[in-house]
């Protein structure tokens, strides 16, 4: 498999997993700032539960923000890049 298709498959798979996890915690996907992935949760607790279930590397990149009507928004920034060598 080429590097490109490998990356596309990996990130698409991750995005699907996150969306399913967010749905499980009653979150709805939304467009984040700069096109980043974001989810809106009905409560802070639901948002925290969601973040706790994310892989460790992604937890560091997840940011909780207050949204309107007491909802909490979780922005997931792109993963930190690491040298393949």
């Amino acid at each position: 498999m080429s590097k490109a298709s490998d990356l596309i498959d990996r990130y698409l798979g991750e995005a699907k997993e996150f969306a399913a996890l967010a749905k499980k915690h009653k979150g709805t996907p939304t467009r984040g700032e700069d096109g980043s992935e974001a989810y809106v949760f009905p409560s802070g607790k639901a948002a925290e539960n969601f973040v706790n279930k994310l892989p460790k590397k992604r937890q560091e990149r997840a940011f909780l923000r207050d949204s309107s009507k007491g909802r909490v928004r979780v922005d997931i920034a792109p993963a930190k890049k690491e040298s393949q060598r």
Partner: protein
Amino acid sequence: MSKAEQLIDRIVESVSEATYMKDDRGITYEIPDKEAERILIKAGIPFAQRKMYKAHDFGSPQLPSPNASALRKLGKRVTPKLPGGKFVDPFEKRRKAQIKAEAKFVKLVKKEAKNWKGWAKGEGKGLVPRGSEPEDLASDAAQDAARDWVQYDREAKKAWETAGHSLMIATEIAADYIYDAMMK
């Protein structure tokens, strides 16, 4: 026998081999030859009529028998529309377009990464940590570069949107390429 007639015969043959299940909602049919089903769709036969041809053998008097002459009655519409070449599955067609768009995006990413490789070696020399130094700065730099590029490069954005994926994934992929180029 013309090609259209051959196809019609094939449909009839396939229909007569169909297995079915009867329940309180009606009859569910399973057509063994998917090609025949596709031909019916391609021929522009509406769903209800396709169902009729599938239903012929199940003791429903109101339904016509799907013999060749019945199909030929429809044939006024069917025959000219029968595919002369290979049937193109719409899903397959979409997937092909998606792969093409993805490939275009990757080509543009590679081009952009090349620019950053040049930058890291020239203007940005010393700004990007290398070797044993912490690589977090390079990761952040690559992500910033990728985010800006995805936002402002119209061609790349369009290609990626044609592929039907989110921009977040585009940023991730671009950042991976740019990071690798910077660290080379």
